[in-house]
């Protein structure tokens, strides 16, 4: 069996989904494509179940906050095909004001904790997730700290105030 490469993979996705797969890019040789949230599960399922592609391993789910963009949250999926020794990155841009996207837990059990982490830090609501609550931060935290509007520093810190340094 010949190993899959990025070009063939992209062609296969184009044949199957056409316009739903957009903006292909190859940063550091990793095929990166965008799709939309209505077709996300369809695309993931195709990548996982297709006999040639076999992207059976969900490496990571995370998100990126781009406050300047109209759709300001990008949810990022990394998949790995063991038999082809190939990875793919899938990005979905969603509305930052009420970020909602379908849960991938129906395809991978591993998505459970990854989606909880993404919810914890970015506030993305994964619809259909069995137990979407905070996983790493304290339960009574009120913000989603990796969103850019929140300061990284703890406001209680006093010993870095300017007047201690004559500023």
């Amino acid at each position: 069996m010949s190993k899959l490469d990025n070009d063939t993979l992209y062609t296969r996705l184009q044949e199957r989904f056409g316009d739903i797969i957009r903006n292909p890019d190859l940063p550091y040789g990793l095929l990166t494509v965008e799709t939309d949230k209505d077709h996300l599960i369809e695309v993931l399922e195709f990548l996982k179940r297709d006999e040639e592609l076999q992207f059976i391993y969900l490496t990571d789910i995370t998100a990126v906050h781009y406050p300047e963009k109209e759709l300001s949250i990008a949810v990022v999926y990394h998949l790995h095909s063991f038999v082809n020794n190939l990875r793919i990155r899938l990005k979905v841009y969603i509305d930052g004001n009420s970020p909602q996207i379908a849960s991938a837990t129906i395809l991978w059990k591993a998505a459970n904790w990854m989606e909880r982490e993404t919810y914890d830090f970015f506030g993305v609501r994964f619809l259909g997730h069995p137990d979407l609550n905070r996983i790493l931060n304290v339960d009574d935290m009120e913000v989603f700290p990796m969103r850019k509007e929140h300061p990284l520093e703890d406001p209680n810190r006093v010993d870095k105030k300017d007047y201690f340094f004559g500023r």
Partner: protein
Amino acid sequence: MKDIKLSQAPPGVEGAGFFATSLDKVIGLARANSLWPLPFATSCCGIEFMATMGSDYDLARFGAERPSFSPRQSDMLLVMGTIAKKMAPVLKQVYTQMAEPRWVIAVGACASSGGIFDTYSVLQGIDEIIPVDVYVPGCPPRPEAILDGIMQLQEIVKNESLNRRNTPEYKALLESYGIQTDNS
């Protein structure tokens, strides 16, 4: 077997067959030289504390022979390392489980002020949740510094009132941290 150093007797009246001093001083001396440590080590400062407990630096010289991993039977809580906000309730519970009299040493920059971890997930000094008696600076402090902190605490213990736990100041301090003081 020379130069065995004994604790100095507190000031008092000495005569043939008797020695009179105040009870506060005697109890303070006894407490100061039998401070049982409760190490609460979360990162690199804990490694320095292991060296402090070891034979080279030998914390046992100061009467702290037995690190007590039960908060019920220890006097001196040593918090060594970064305390994440998620860890804060655990630390507070350990502190409230300790019996009076109890003292706290914040070892290192993280326990004292959050250190380099000026971030949303890290407690900016354990004195946000429990009262602290001695702060040891350093990142991490060397064993000598930890020993110095313990000797500073010994001075505090020697000189404080026998009945500190019942003073209104102390009760007010604990209550300002939301720690219940009246167990009756």
